[in-house]
């Protein structure tokens, strides 16, 4: 049986055009970048501008990678903002300078590993709770994570007594604020995390399982996939990524309080959706998620650079998100 007679090689559309129509998210990004370049005569893309863009978007990128994987499994996570906030607060509380009188653990000097580990564990724990509620509790992800959102917020306020957790040690801040030559550390961390997510989604059995569960959960079960376990894992992974985001956010700002990262879930969800991760599940790539984050980043950055009035910024951002998703939608319609 010749391959040609059965699995017929129908000439796939080739060239730039085909690539672009498949990757509208990249088109959107390039159009926006070019538009910004044109409007500012290229001034918007100096080295420090690009550094700023990378720094500004990196924390969101972790959240996006996490929620992007969750959305691939047909889930959603609304708890991101407050989980990151809780993580940042917990992490920061172990990184305060010991001579700071208002520190949560005044007089105690923890090694730098403690705030990092505490943050990651807090994030992982929140993710685990989300995962257990969704997978074994059979709660709709929307509701389960809405619950953890409120719990995380409550815990943050109880833990910090609503105070700002500030005066963080310089070595802790350096983790976020430093740079390797011209490349900010934050960008390096994101690159590393993105690589890991790429390997996970593209090259592991679990990644394929995520796509299968999002594509058809019943068929996934019939195919022998342990749907519950995989769902717990995806929320757990996301939790770890939020953990990283929280630790880095605390370090970057040198503080954490009840307002840190508020609303980050919406930015992250919007970013991955713009990047081509479909809310219907089973569709999306690491590259798309990162492109989505950068797209939203360039919108934020561009409008700040151009000095667009804040109220108009929100409006524009909304319109661009809708148009971008609309362009992307057609290619993955379910038939």
């Amino acid at each position: 049986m010749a391959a040609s007679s059965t699995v017929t090689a129908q000439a796939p559309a080739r060239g730039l055009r085909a690539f672009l129509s498949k990757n509208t998210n990249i088109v959107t990004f390039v159009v926006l970048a070019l538009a910004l370049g044109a409007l500012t005569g290229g001034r918007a893309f100096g080295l420090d501008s690009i550094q700023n863009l990378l720094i500004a978007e990196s924390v969101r990128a972790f959240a996006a990678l996490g929620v992007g994987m969750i959305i691939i499994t047909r889930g959603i996570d609304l708890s991101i903002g407050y989980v990151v906030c809780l993580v940042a607060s917990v992490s920061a509380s172990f990184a305060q300078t010991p001579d700071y009188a208002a520190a949560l653990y005044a007089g105690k000097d923890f090694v730098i590993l403690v705030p990092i580990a505490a943050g990651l564990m807090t994030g992982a724990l929140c993710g685990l709770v989300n995962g257990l509620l969704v997978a074994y509790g059979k709660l709709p992800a929307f509701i389960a994570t809405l619950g953890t959102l409120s719990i995380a917020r409550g815990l943050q306020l109880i833990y910090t007594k609503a105070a700002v957790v500030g005066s963080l040690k310089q070595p802790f801040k350096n983790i976020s604020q430093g740079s390797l030559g011209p490349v900010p550390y934050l960008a390096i961390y994101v690159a590393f995390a993105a690589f890991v997510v790429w390997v996970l989604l593209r090259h592991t059995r679990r990644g394929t399982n995520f796509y299968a569960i999002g594509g058809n959960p019943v068929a996934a079960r019939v195919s022998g996939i342990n749907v519950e376990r995989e769902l717990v894992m995806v929320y757990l992974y996301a939790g770890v990524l939020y953990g990283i985001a929280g630790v880095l956010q605390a370090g970057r700002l040198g503080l954490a309080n009840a307002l840190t990262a508020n609303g980050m879930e919406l930015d992250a969800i919007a970013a991955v959706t713009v990047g081509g991760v479909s809310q219907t599940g089973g569709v999306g790539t690491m590259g798309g998620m990162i492109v989505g984050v950068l797209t939203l980043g360039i919108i934020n950055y561009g409008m700040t650079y151009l000095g667009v009035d804040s109220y108009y910024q929100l409006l524009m951002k909304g319109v661009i998100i809708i148009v971008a998703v609309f362009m992307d939608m057609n290619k993955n319609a379910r038939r």
Partner: protein
Amino acid sequence: MKRMSILALALVVLAAGSLIGCQSKSSKPVIGALIRNLDEQFVADYAANVKVLAEKAGVELKLLDSRSDQATQLDQLNTLLSQGVKYFVIVPNQTEATEQMAQAIAKKKGGAAFSNIQPSVAALKVGKNFFLASSPESVAGQIQAQIIDDYFQKNPKKLGANKTINALMLLGQLGHPAQKYRTDAVLQGLKDKGYTVNVVAQDTANWKPDEAQQKMDAWIAAFKGKFNIVITNNDGMALGAVESLLTAKYVDDPKDLTKDTDGDGTVLKVPVLGVDATQVALKSMSENKLYATVLQDSVGQSSTAFELALAMAQGKYKAGFEAWGLKPETTPGDEAPANDAAVIGQCYLVPFKAVTKDNYKEFVK
């Protein structure tokens, strides 16, 4: 369809571009204004005045709203710095973030004046070009305490046994600096004046009148007769509480809601206090509903900060500079950062004002 979408996208971008108008290439001085959150009345008034001042002074103003997110504010600062903006008026999100912002500005040899939320001592120590142009949040609470003290001096019968104040407290968004400092200061202030403060109930109403009204409805039902004052963190919530009390007829004379029969200055059974002195609040005071509020002087703070930034931009600033008729402090006070001799010359304290029956008419526009 796709082509149309791309077109639409391009149009949106161009529209965004046109909104900023023609970017002037003139050598006008440029000042950046980093504004915490335009949803807050005080901050919005502050920003509006900065715009007016910039127009008058012929300054190019870049005003950005961080929507209460310190990370956003930091990104906005970096963007403006990379555009070459050097002098700023800043309404920060948190005291703790001011040092980092000051360092970033100092790297570009710029300067900034911080309003509303005070910068840390360390932020002012970054350089002589960094200023406090504010009245600390806690002062609003202290003034509320003073007004309450006056009220009970005049109406001792309203006080509980052993000088007990039974308070209902409506708080702003939890963890928000204005919520925290105002609340802490009013409670501390009353204690300092010798009162026993019994907080009958307290909860957040997220700055909002409707949430405040809901909370108050429930509290009136639960604690009728068990409280003698309602303290709130802003006028919005205060007005929500007033509305609730009126609806429940928790007033001096249920038959006539406009009669202040006990002569305590409000038709309500208990006084309600706000902060901000918004125009609606003043109207309510004129009707003997809201008892009193506190003016955080947005015009004073913004003018002081702007004049400092402008002086720096024009190279006219020198130590002891007089901004909006204010001289910098000379002797360290109690509160940071104006308690540190090293930076005292960078602190401009704009007074808060109690707004009561006696003086509210001065503020009506």
